[in-house]
């Protein structure tokens, strides 16, 4: 087991180095093959890690520097099922994306594959890391590879704008994280998560700890794309090539939330324990706000990739809210949702990629009815979206049922309805798009929706047209199957809950990492049956999604009076939302600074 963990990072890196060294001297197809093999191998390794660390988490110390006397000098990777499942998700999505891109991106030599593999290595290492600085280094590695990949097909100003916004905001986020890490190092003299947590646990929280917490949280929130740090996300996803979007949407945002969870539980849960309520409330509210804004913006969008970007933002908000409830049940639910929805969103991007590649347009209204011949593709799309909407008993439903359960036990009964509303709205936009594109339903035009930018550059194909259409359906279908199946396999919920309980137990974690103490054996939990409320919310969000989609499809045909009233009520907020998403990088950085200051202010006031 100790051998497999570093290999999960080393394999993609070695493959990337090899492909780069032999650049342009390989026959076409060899680089695809090597890359896909490396990604698949990493996926297999990570899945093995998920299965084998359920009972006994693994801590690997690099260079043989095991801790002595409770002091850990070496870099540690703490591998347990939840983080390993994120790494596995990243690897599976990379493999799927590379299969899709098979021979579609041959014109840049093999550099595309090199960057995808480096991106994968960064994600795996970030997910598994148990050391603050290592998290930072691989956060940046992910970022650099992602910026370059986003700007990849740079033959119009579009991708450059998105990549620029992405690069600038994420770099600033990285400096903030590094500043937070520096402050923690200054206070505790350690970089290992467990050791820092131990050192902070036996003291009250003071200004420095709060500031460090704020900086780290803001940095990770930018990566996750939570309001008001999300602006870069919609621009970047809208312009990045489809294989890159699969990865960005399916795995990268979730890693931001994972970072917050890791850092909170392993480092700050000690000193901030008396103030847990305040942390919970602040972050849950932020999550819900993000979920609703994201959902609203996705409904107002006709450009398919940008719509999916907003759906991702909305989902990230839901994940933040779930994680911020700070209980094992909620975290287990969120983790299941993350993996399930990651698979489903990845599948949706792949399906979109096929449609856009064949029809050379990426806008819902322009594509009206044109994908009617693609029945199987449409079916896969429909299943994926219904899964996202929370259709029982599939993966995302199980996740939200657990979160709903946890929220109600905490007395936060107001949370599930809001989350259900956000999920319904964001899924509705996808259903509406699907209805228009695959079934030809709905009106041909809707002035309310923002059109995709490509209309300006008329004959711009979305992907370089190669002779062979990309092989999307098999990976997409497989991803949908996994995403849905997660809700149906009974062991998933139990294992997730056990792993979440372990994740949130800081003293046991510290003892295990620093002193090698074996963790207590897992308690026997009986199979989880979602309570009635969970089923109710799942059914409601699905039904709501269908209803709102129908509304969206036929909105211009509603009676004029009704539309006028709605317009007067909803007009100003919509206009504000639209103006705010301006596309100018200076604005985004201002929002970042403002958001950081506001969050910092709230934390300083409530966490002392």
């Amino acid at each position, binding site marked *: 087991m*100790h*051998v497999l963990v*570093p*290999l999960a990072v*080393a394999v993609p*890196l*070695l493959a*990337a*180095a*090899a*492909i*780069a*060294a*032999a*650049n*342009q*001297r390989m026959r076409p197809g060899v680089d695809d093959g090597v890359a896909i093999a490396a990604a698949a191998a990493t996926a297999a390794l990570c899945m093995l890690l998920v299965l084998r660390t359920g009972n006994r988490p693994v801590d*690997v*110390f*690099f*260079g*043989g*520097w095991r801790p002595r006397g409770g002091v850990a*000098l*070496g*870099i540690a990777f703490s591998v347990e099922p939840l983080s390993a499942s994120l790494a596995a998700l990243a690897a599976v999505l990379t493999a799927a994306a590379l299969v899709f891109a098979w021979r579609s991106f041959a*014109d*840049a*030599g093999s*550099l*595309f594959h*090199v*960057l995808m593999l*480096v991106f994968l*290595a*960064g994600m795996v*290492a970030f997910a598994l890391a148990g050391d603050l*600085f*290592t998290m930072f*280094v*691989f956060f*940046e*590695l992910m970022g*650099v*590879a992602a*910026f*370059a*990949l986003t*700007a*990849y097909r*740079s*033959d119009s100003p579009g991708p450059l704008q998105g990549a620029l916004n992405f690069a600038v905001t994420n770099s600033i986020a990285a400096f903030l994280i590094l500043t937070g890490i520096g402050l923690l190092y200054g206070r505790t003299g350690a970089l290992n998560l467990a050791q820092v947590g131990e050192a902070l646990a036996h003291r009250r929280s003071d200004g420095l700890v709060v500031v460090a917490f704020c900086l780290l949280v803001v940095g990770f929130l930018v990566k996750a794309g939570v309001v008001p740090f999300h602006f870069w996300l919609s621009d970047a996803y809208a312009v990045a090539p489809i294989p890159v979007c699969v990865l960005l949407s399916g795995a990268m945002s979730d890693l931001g939330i994972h970072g917050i969870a890791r850092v909170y539980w392993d480092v700050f849960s000690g000193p901030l324990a008396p103030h847990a309520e305040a942390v919970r409330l602040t972050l849950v509210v932020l999550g819900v706000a993000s979920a609703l804004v994201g959902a609203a913006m996705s409904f107002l969008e006709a450009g398919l990739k940008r719509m999916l970007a907003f759906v991702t933002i909305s989902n990230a908000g839901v994940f933040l809210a779930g994680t911020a409830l700070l209980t094992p049940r909620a975290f287990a639910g969120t983790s299941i949702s993350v993996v399930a929805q990651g698979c489903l969103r990845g599948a949706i991007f792949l399906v979109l990629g096929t449609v856009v590649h064949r029809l050379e347009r990426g806008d819902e209204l322009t594509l009206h009815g044109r994908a009617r011949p693609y029945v199987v593709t449409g079916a896969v799309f429909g299943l994926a979206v219904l899964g996202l909407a929370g259709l029982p008993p599939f993966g995302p439903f199980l996740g939200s049922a657990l979160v709903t359960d946890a929220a109600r036990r905490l007395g936060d009964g107001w949370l599930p309805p809001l989350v259900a509303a956000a999920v319904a709205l964001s899924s509705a936009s996808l259903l509406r798009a699907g209805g228009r594109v695959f079934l030809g339903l709905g009106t041909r035009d809707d002035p309310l929706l923002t059109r995709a930018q490509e209309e300006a550059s008329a004959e711009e194909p979305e992907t370089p047209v190669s002779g062979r259409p990309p092989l999307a359906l098999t990976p997409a279908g497989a991803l949908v199957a996994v995403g849905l199946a997660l809700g149906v396999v009974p062991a998933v919920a139990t294992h997730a809950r056990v792993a979440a309980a372990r994740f949130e137990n800081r003293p046991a974690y510290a003892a295990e990492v620093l002193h090698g103490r074996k963790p207590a054996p897992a308690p026997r939990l009986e199979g989880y049956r979602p309570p009635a409320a969970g089923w109710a919310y799942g059914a409601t969000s699905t039904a709501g999604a269908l209803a709102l989609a129908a509304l969206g499809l036929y909105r211009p045909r509603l009676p004029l009076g009704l539309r006028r009233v709605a317009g007067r009520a909803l007009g100003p907020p919509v206009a504000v939302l639209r103006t705010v998403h301006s596309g100018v990088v200076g604005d985004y950085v201002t929002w970042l600074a403002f958001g950081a200051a506001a969050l910092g202010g709230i934390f300083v006031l409530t966490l002392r």
Partner: protein
Amino acid sequence: MTFDYRGLDTLGEEFLLFAAAVGVALLLREARDEELGRPEDAVDGEAIRATGLGAVGLTVVLGLYVVAHGPMTPGGGFQGGVVLAAAVALVYVAGSYRAFRRVSPTALLDLAKGAGAGGFVLVAIAGLAAGGSFLENVLPLGTPGTLASAGTIPLLNAATGLEVAAAFTLLFTEFVEELQQARLEGRG
């Protein structure tokens, strides 16, 4: 220390530079007309050329020195690699574009970069293969203060130096090529 107990961070850092060089190549290479011709862009003034080209040799030696003495004095793979790259850049700055391209062919740079990055990972895996952990030392430690001491650290330093030198030279090359193309198109 950068290469031993925080060695994994150094691996990440090295690949970061690798990714940046690959990214820049990805962005700039494909958009450029490969048939650039051989523009005559040379420095006038014999004095500059003589001094500059003399300095190249010295800089290369300095770079190699810094890389090799990583474990013992301030320096190491990163710093040494940058100095080596600067030596190559000097050929352009104090010499001519053609000479610069002759000493920095793209294929060689790609190979060096990949080899350096891959080499680091392989040395790290060697530790794994020898029954220890990733990045663990598998070579004899030698006497402190001499060149062949500190186990695998000189190897890691060398790999890093190679990769950093190649990556920086590649970056510089890409930007210089852009400059040449701009001049060719009259954008100056």
